[in-house]
């Protein structure tokens, strides 16, 4: 089983600051980290690998005696390989090292100046090309969305470019030989169990797995590993320069507005209950909490 996890590097949202005057996100204000949703996807991959290992172990245990060669083979070969792929600037390799610490077997950085300025469509196209190039994945996991862009588009768009089925909001995945059964957390007010033919793309919620802490040993090892990189040249025949980066992006950000901290109205009403209900009622209507026609 070959599992691919798509991750994005994002700024730590608890610390990142915004400049309302210049309308920019001050990325230097916060450490970059793996998008928390993607971290859950990676943990889900690690858990799936562990399950497969247990199953395989059980199967090896029931093998008829005398089949020692196959038995020893099963012990040495890992039942699954986890590859982590991220697209970003060279510094994003730091997140890949973190992914290694958390259980990834192979880490690939998709980086090239030509990829800069990609919108979700171009990003998905580029990722799809890289996935084709790496080849052979049975299951592709990603977080349901990123905490910075919050578009929740790239997973499904990548699936479309790869011609694979996808499911979002997965809180549970179980694998059989050629299928995945996915429990979708909330679609139209209900849970859904979905059968996907493999290979497939699955976007997961945080509920699928709580990321576990890496060991200190693996964390220290991760500082030393080498990271594979893929650039535009490596995608020859799969992606052209016009299909990626700023050029390949149908959407353009015209401007960014950072709303100034709203001044609280801080209105304190005494005794006049009607006025209080009227004033707050108007605000509730404004915010779509209640319909008009009430006070």
């Amino acid at each position, binding site marked *: 089983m070959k599992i691919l996890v798509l991750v994005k590097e994002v700024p730590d949202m608890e610390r990142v600051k915004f400049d309302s005057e210049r309308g920019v996100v001050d990325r230097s204000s916060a450490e970059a980290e793996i998008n928390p949703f993607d971290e859950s996807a990676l943990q889900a991959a690690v858990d799936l690998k562990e399950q497969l290992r247990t199953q395989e172990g059980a199967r090896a245990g029931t093998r008829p005696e005398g089949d020692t060669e196959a038995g020893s083979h099963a012990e040495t070969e890992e039942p699954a390989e986890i590859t982590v792929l991220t697209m970003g600037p060279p510094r994003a390799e730091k997140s890949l090292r973190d992914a290694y610490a958390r259980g990834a077997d192979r880490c690939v950085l998709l980086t090239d100046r030509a990829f800069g300025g990609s919108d979700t469509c171009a990003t998905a196209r580029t990722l799809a090309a890289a996935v084709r190039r790496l080849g052979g994945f049975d299951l592709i996991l990603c977080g349901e969305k990123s905490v910075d862009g919050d578009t929740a588009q790239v997973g499904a768009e990548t699936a479309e470019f790869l011609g694979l089925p996808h499911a979002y909001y997965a809180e549970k995945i179980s694998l059989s030989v050629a299928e995945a059964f996915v429990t979708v957390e909330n679609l139209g007010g209900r849970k859904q169990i979905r059968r996907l033919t493999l290979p497939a793309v699955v976007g997961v919620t945080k509920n699928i797995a709580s990321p576990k802490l*890496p060991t*200190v040993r693996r964390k220290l090892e991760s500082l030393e590993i080498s990271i594979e990189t893929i650039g535009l040249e490596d995608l020859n025949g799969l992606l052209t320069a016009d299909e990626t980066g700023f050029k390949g992006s149908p959407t353009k950000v015209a401007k960014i507005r950072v709303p100034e901290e709203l001044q609280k109205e801080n209105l304190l009403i005494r005794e006049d209950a009607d006025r209080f209900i009227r004033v707050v009622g108007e605000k509730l209507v404004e915010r779509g909490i209640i319909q008009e026609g009430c006070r």
Partner: protein
Amino acid sequence: MREQIIRELIDITGPDYVTADREQIQSYIFDQVEETYRPEPSRDFVVVKPGRTEEVSQIMKLASREKIPVVVRGGGTGLAGGCTPIYSSIVISMERMNRIVEIDADNMMAVLEAGVTLMELLTELEKYEGLSFPVHPGDEGAQMGGMAVTNAGGARAVRHGVMRKHIMGVEAVLPSGEVLELGGKLIKNNAGYNLTQLLLGSEGTLAVITRVILKIYPKDKYSATIVAPFPHFENACRAVMDILKSGSVPLAVEYMDKRLFVGTAEMLGLEWQAKEGDSDLLIILSEKTEEQLYNSVREINEICRKNSCLETLFAGKKREQDELLLVRSQHYEYIKNDICDSFDMAVPVSQVPAFIGDLKHLAEEYHTGTNVIAHIADGNVHNDILYVDGKIPNYAAELKQRMYDACFSHGGTITGEHGVGKIRVNDLLRQKDPAELELMRGIKKVFDPDNIMNPGTVI
């Protein structure tokens, strides 16, 4: 409370900031002491919320004239009953005096009104590149005045010491109403007795602190927490001493009985990830550069390994570290229904293993248990006495005395950080020499001749 007093208080602060309404004063009675050990409160008190030092001064003049006890209330996060009024009193709540007067980045000091909460201070310092304040008693609702006057501690004392180390000066109002400026933005100041330091740890029995000058520090940008599980408690203790000797001083080293980590995590819907071993340490590191951080991690991991540590875990993200700290800090919710008294003793670091061993043996002797939670690298040990069948056991007083005796035999103190408050006044008599107690009483009399400042506290 007499109508006349309430009227005069209203004259000082305005009607919105004075209340004696039974319902409204409910939230001004207790701090966070266990219910069983709370002091018996008076229900006849008035809460006043001054907005300026001048108003505090007028309130004190009124109280002195009428000889009415005054209890000053900060964030209400104390653990010794210090802010609970036990006589008919005026409770001064400092919540409105929450102005950040100055962040002086040149002298690296902050001037703050007493009601500024730790959270407000930390939020403000976030705005300045690379500034921070290290003392953290656990609850960020704590106010600066309260933290100063109780000499608050917390887990980070291993590296940064306690509140006393960081207060350079205070503005204080005496019972007479006189306003004093003590200390200042001075690193060196050798003129006469240090009254600032005298007020720190006085728990509201000498004067009202209305303003503090606080030392602030450059922020360590990189931090990590190591979860280190050991096969035995002794291994963990030896590792702690080796770490302290190594020169890589962690921000904090926290110990809790393993079942408390496991149980609290489960209560919070989390999972304690160190499955093996018998004793876990949380070792919190913080450094200026990433390289320094990993060097410390390497070094400390090596020390743990030499002391037979099992597979160590690494929490590098804020979220991950917060989660570990949450488990550490929420253990109280996990055990609170089982315990009738809890302690805050401290011994020299080298004595911690022997002392905790004594506590466990004592519990065994009484066929009961005790939960041990320790800021292990600064010798501060929290443990408790358990209910038996939902009641305070008849041996509770005796067991407490024997725990204290064990503590004293290791050169310890009955309170490392929570203070004496109203719940350990009698215990203090067991620790201190009569001559020292007499001096304390004398000092109290000089400041507060009518004994109106938080009577029933400390001494």
